[in-house]
């Protein structure tokens, strides 16, 4: 029985085959996965907000933010022996759980998705798949053997990216 490791909000976890990383109940958060198919090492960052500008990292966990969590994930993985040149990225989440009404809207999901893409681009990490946006929550299982992410969404068929 291989280990199944949950990744909570504002957390970053790295793992290796045959382990699995799982995240339950992703809404406007964006899960960034990096995977190295050669060493079968990978990791997830659970991003809640786009931008860490102006925060004090001693007080606020920098792993909450796209611009700081993505480089941290990259460094954690390369530090653990993953090959820089073979790392590929997939992202999941960023939905707008509550439909906008006349007097409010909440676009954190969209902002998170854009900020994560920008941070990946800055590190020249190729984004090979995404399942983002929409109105539904998602849960995922990240298999470190294949690099495949299984997605479950309420009322929809299981799918993989």
């Amino acid at each position: 029985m291989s280990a199944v490791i949950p990744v909570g909000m504002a957390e970053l976890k790295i793992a290796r085959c045959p382990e699995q990383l799982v995240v339950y109940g992703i809404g406007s958060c964006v899960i960034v996965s990096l995977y190295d198919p050669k060493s079968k090492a990978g990791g997830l960052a659970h991003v809640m907000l786009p931008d860490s500008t102006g925060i004090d990292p001693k007080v606020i966990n920098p792993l909450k933010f796209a611009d700081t969590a993505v480089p941290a994930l990259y460094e954690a993985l390369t530090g653990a022996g993953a090959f820089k040149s073979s790392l590929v990225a997939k992202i999941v989440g960023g939905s707008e759980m509550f439909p906008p009404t006349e007097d409010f809207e909440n676009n954190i999901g969209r902002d998170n998705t854009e900020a994560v893409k920008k941070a990946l681009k800055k590190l020249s990490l190729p984004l090979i798949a995404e399942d983002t946006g929409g109105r539904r929550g998602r849960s995922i299982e990240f298999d470190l053997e294949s690099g495949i992410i299984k997605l479950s969404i309420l009322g929809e068929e299981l799918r993989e990216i």
Partner: protein
Amino acid sequence: MQDVTNLTRTQLDALREIGNIGSGNAASALAQFLNRKIDMAVPSASIMDFKAIPAIIGGPDKTVMGIFLKVMGEISGRFLLLIPEKTSLKLLHTLIPGCEIDTPLKMGELESSCMREVGNILAGAFLNALSVITQTPMLNSLPSMTYDMAGAMIDSIVADMTAISDKVLMIETSFIESEEDLRIHIFLLPDPASLQLLLKKIGVV
């Protein structure tokens, strides 16, 4: 700005008391339109790590009905109702004659609109009581509703509140109709920026 982690016991007690009054008013409204006796759990006012919130209603992947409203005015915040599947079906069957859906996933426009109205009435009753106590008008936005995993809703609601602190102030209570074990969880999350004013208005600065 008042840091939520520095609240005193007296301040938390006062916040719990306004939770009590607000939810008492909302419980009467619910009892009235369901024509049933509604019991109310003792409210809590607590400073929570945002990560611990989903556990209150059974874990991040627990499927519930969520109705979300913004609280607007000088004292602003967020108001969330989480309603387990069984209770939401009971509400729909009671309030819509002939409604027989067996899962909230099959809700149509009529059912959605009915649940949003439930949210509107409960939030309105709760905030009315708060407006009276604080002598500050508090209005709610139109309600937005979804049926999904609790964790997914909560991250969307608290995300931007956690930009300045890992802790959020949450006033929470539940309504229970004991005969059939129907429950509604109410969460009020005052915006950190208006917390100071709220404390001043209830006399515990």
